[in-house]
């Protein structure tokens, strides 16, 4: 009979222990791989949607200066498939813009974007007509062009092409360059997004999606990043739990192991066998967990897909095999478990029977001070650090410190209560109260690791809830801000000021339209750096109720008179506050206005200014006007038919703001469901481990309870007391872990996000949810206590 049989005999005698160890490993690996699988799929979907929906990016200079031919040459020489695009706008109303492209390099774009943008035939046509300058466009636009008689415009051949966007004429880039002197020219260097997978941009350049609307990528990335952080925390919790359960299993086998050594088994061989055992267990549990995690992810994918597509416009979530990071996480569990188990084995010779002694008390005090120091040092680093890895390291330090500090704090609280019972209480109940405190202190010491794990689980639940709720509130505010009114209208082409006014009048006359808010966007310069500029009419009823982070009283009249609104990112970057003067340049026009409001603008790290539309120069770079419409009973109006009914609206895009808001809210409801599920799993994991440990520990403590029964405490009372002890410990732990959860939430939204993505979320506090978590803690405690059934076993008093 070999060592394997002896080891097996232990688990045959204690099958619950084996099941418990495997269960914890499976749950942890399942949680981790489930989260990883979901976020992995979502990341993949983000990439796909980026490539499919925004196949061409614009390359811009990091220093903010406009790109020129030299930049184009440099990018081509670097081997990138880029193509120039020169857009010329003319000051006359309703004049179509001329967009010049380079048909030779346009082929580069074409290989990535068949069916979008410029069609193959158009490029071919431009190539064929290189000998004579040609303008391609819709018949109406070509007719308008002919009416204008711009200098030299008669030299071009005009070809009507169906399918081109209205308000645009397409030409070879040399034609557009020739017209640049008559109008205002903007050169862009376009790049297929997929090209960035092949080659990086040279230094000094960055890619930018030319999109004035939603830029959800940073928000998606932050969301997924934070979900991954939850998965990592679940791993940490699992490692703690596995270690503690395994340690207890080892403790139970100590006598057997000692006998084996006495019988001549070499200790080194014994240790090797134990390491092999824990490795085997961890491998089995983790493999099963990864498999179940995939199932979990598949089961949750629908909700997740709904969330992401509702929130961020991502659609596909393809089934993908577990990524390397998933296995890396599992390997991490293995390494932690085996490493920790090895430490236990090295200490095997020492008597590790946990005892409630004064010596232990001194050790606890020393640990308390050490942990307090670690926490404070980590906190200082956390507050000062800017690097992401340092923030993570400091957070880990804070967590480890707090995790070990919490049971110590619990012990301290109970010690005070014990002293109070001893010194101040009298009557027959006082001794029992004193014993209860002492007993709970002993339980805290014995259950230190599972309690720490439970504290982490509670903290993770509260932190993640704060994070997700923060995202929800942020998104709701973001939607509120952007989804004012009932309809959003993108004309599909740039409008000059006079054209925009004309559009405003026409829109106002549409059936059911009660208010029109033109929103003009463009680029400005502030302190030499580019900023996004938005202009709107402060008197419009559609801006009422706009949420601000900080604002002067009556901000809208103040905006019209002298003010400017800035976004949070700009306020942070330039250290601007209410009442400060801001000097900026819009086109050639310098302006100085007073900050009268700061608004949140999450997901876009660029600085933004909002000015009254009346102050905007016509020559604002990148000027683009969109409209927000207020409707009188949106439900009864067939606005979807407008582009067909009104030719001047052809090519424009209309979006139902209220429907979008509803979809987004529904998506968040799904997110909450998922988060609740993940949180529930984490808590269940910690609760299961606590129950398993509780079973073992209460067996050890059963002698004390039995003794009390012998001393005359009725069985029922002891049973109630046992449940109360368990509930009190988890309840107190829940109370103490709540600030840790708030801290974790704060770290995620206020430290990790700014370092990783350049913007912060506000910290949302939800006492109602804390109460729910606390009640869950009490339930876990009650469940663990109730599992013991009868705390009295006369056999425990038998002499050995």
């Amino acid at each position, binding site marked *: 009979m070999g060592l394997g049989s002896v080891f097996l005999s232990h688990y045959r005698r204690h099958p619950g222990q084996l099941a418990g160890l495997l269960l914890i490993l499976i749950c942890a690996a399942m949680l981790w791989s489930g989260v990883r699988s979901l976020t992995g799929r979502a990341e993949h979907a983000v990439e796909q949607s980026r490539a499919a929906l925004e196949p061409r990016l614009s390359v811009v200079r990091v220093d903010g200066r406009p790109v020129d031919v030299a930049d184009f040459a440099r990018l081509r020489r670097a081997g990138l498939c880029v193509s120039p695009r020169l857009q010329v706008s003319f000051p006359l109303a309703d004049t179509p813009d001329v967009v010049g492209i380079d048909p030779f390099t346009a082929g580069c774009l074409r290989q990535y974007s068949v069916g979008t943008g410029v069609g193959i035939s158009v490029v071919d046509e431009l190539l064929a007509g290189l000998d004579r300058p040609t303008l391609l466009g819709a018949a109406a636009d070509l007719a308008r062009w002919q009416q204008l008689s711009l200098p030299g415009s008669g030299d071009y051949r005009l070809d009507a092409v169906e399918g081109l966007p209205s308000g645009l004429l397409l030409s070879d880039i040399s034609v557009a360059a020739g017209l640049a002197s008559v109008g205002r020219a903007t050169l862009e260097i376009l790049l297929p997004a997929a090209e960035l997978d092949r080659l990086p941009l040279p230094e000094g350049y960055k890619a930018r999606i030319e999109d004035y609307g939603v830029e959800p990528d940073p928000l998606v990335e932050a969301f997924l990043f934070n979900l991954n952080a939850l998965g990592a925390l679940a791993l940490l919790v699992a490692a703690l739990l596995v270690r503690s359960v395994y340690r207890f299993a080892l403790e139970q086998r100590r006598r057997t192991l000692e006998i084996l050594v006495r019988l001549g088994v070499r200790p080194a061989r014994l240790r090797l066998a134990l390491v092999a055992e824990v490795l085997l267990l961890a491998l089995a549990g983790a493999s099963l967990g990864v498999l179940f995690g995939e199932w979990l992810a598949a089961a949750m994918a629908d909700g997740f897909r709904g969330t992401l597509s509702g929130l961020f416009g991502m659609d596909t979530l393809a089934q993908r095999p577990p990524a390397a990071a998933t296995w890396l996480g599992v390997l991490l569990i293995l390494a932690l478990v085996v490493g920790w188990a090895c430490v236990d084995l090295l200490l095997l010779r020492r008597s590790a029977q946990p*005892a*409630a*002694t*004064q010596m232990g008390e001194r050790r606890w005090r020393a640990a308390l001070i050490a942990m307090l120091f670690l926490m404070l040092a980590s906190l200082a680093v956390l507050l000062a650090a800017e690097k992401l890895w340092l923030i993570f390291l400091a957070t880990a330090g804070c967590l480890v410190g707090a995790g070990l500090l919490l049971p110590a704090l619990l012990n301290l609280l109970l010690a005070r209560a014990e002293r109070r019972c*001893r010194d101040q209480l*009298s009557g*027959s109940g*006082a*001794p*029992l109260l*004193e*014993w209860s405190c*002492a*007993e709970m*202190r*002993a339980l805290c010491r014995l259950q230190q690791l599972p309690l720490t794990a439970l504290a982490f689980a509670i903290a993770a639940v509260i932190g993640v809830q704060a994070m997700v709720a923060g995202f929800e509130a942020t998104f709701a505010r973001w939607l509120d801000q952007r989804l004012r009114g009932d309809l959003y209208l993108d004309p599909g082409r740039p409008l000059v000021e006079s054209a925009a006014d004309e559009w405003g009048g026409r829109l106002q006359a549409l059936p059911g339209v009660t208010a029109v808010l033109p929103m003009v966007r463009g680029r400005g310069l502030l302190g030499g750096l580019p900023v996004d500029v938005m202009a709107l009419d402060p008197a419009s009823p559609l801006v009422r109720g706009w949420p601000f982070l900080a604002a002067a009283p009556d901000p809208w009249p103040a905006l019209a008179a002298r003010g400017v609104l800035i976004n949070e990112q700009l306020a942070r970057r330039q250290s601007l506050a209410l009442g400060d003067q801001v000097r900026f340049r819009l086109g050639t026009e310098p302006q100085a206005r007073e900050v009268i409001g700061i608004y949140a603008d999450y997901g876009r790290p660029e600085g933004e200014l909002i000015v009254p539309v009346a102050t905007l120069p016509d020559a604002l770079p990148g000027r683009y006007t969109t409209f927000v419409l207020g409707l009188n009973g949106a439900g009864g109006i067939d606005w979807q038919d407008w582009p067909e009914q009104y030719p001047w609206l052809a090519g424009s895009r209309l979006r139902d703001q209220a429907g979008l808001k509803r979809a987004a809210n529904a998506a968040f409801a799904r997110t909450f469901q998922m988060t609740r599920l993940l949180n529930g799993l984490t808590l269940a994991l910690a609760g299961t481990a606590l129950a398993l440990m509780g079973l073992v520990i209460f067996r050890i403590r059963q*002698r*004390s309870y039995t*003794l*009390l*029964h*012998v*001393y*005359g*405490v*009725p*069985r*029922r009372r002891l049973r109630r007391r046992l449940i109360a002890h368990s509930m009190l410990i988890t309840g107190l732990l829940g109370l103490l872990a709540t600030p840790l959860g708030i801290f974790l939430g704060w770290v995620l939204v206020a430290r990790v996000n700014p370092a990783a993505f350049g913007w912060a979320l506000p910290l949302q506090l939800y006492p109602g949810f804390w109460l729910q978590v606390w009640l869950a803690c009490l339930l876990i405690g009650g469940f663990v206590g109730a599992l013991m059934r009868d705390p009295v076993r*006369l056999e425990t*008093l*038998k*002499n050995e």
Partner: protein
Amino acid sequence: MNDVLIQARDLCMSYRTGRERIGVLRGLSLELRRGEAVAVIGPSGSGKSTLLNLLNGLLRPDSGQLRVFGREQAELGEGDWAALRRTRIATLFQDGNLIPTLTVARNIAFRAGLAGLEQHGGQALLERLDIADTAQRYPDQISGGQRQRAALACAFAMQPELMLADEPTGSLDQTTAQRAIPLFFDAIRERALGALIVTHNPELARRCDRILELRQGALSPWDSAVSS
């Protein structure tokens, strides 16, 4: 005042192991008076501990009559038995069985407190038992002999009328046992307690007023000649 503390007649008790019932006590009878010390000896597994657990109400007999402090056991509910164990019946085990999370002094205060006694003279008891220096130590910080004497101090602190002791010197070496036994009997005699002592120790048994042997589920006066 009734001097008979325990009156047992034809007590039967059995345990179920699987489908089988094993009879441990088969018609056991016993009478114990105040101030009387009775030793019960017998081979391992003869039911000595079961007898003690019947007498302090931790177990119920299958049949037979048991009167404790003049009250029929059938009339006594769990709460009544618990009250008796808190205030009148002390049980002492082989290795002391102190509460491990309380110091020796707090263990004594605890037992007295459960009995509703404010004053317990714990320190005097410890001095008397020659373990005054252990008062602030935890049970796992003192020796087996000290633990046993500390348990004795706890038992006396509750001022019982009946002492049930299960191998009180079982975990002590011979020298320590020889020092502990007189202290034990002095304390019993001073307080005129009734004591039922289960033991294998002949020295301890010889100091008792009577020695009974538990054999085949019944008690009979010990006959040293037969036993030897």
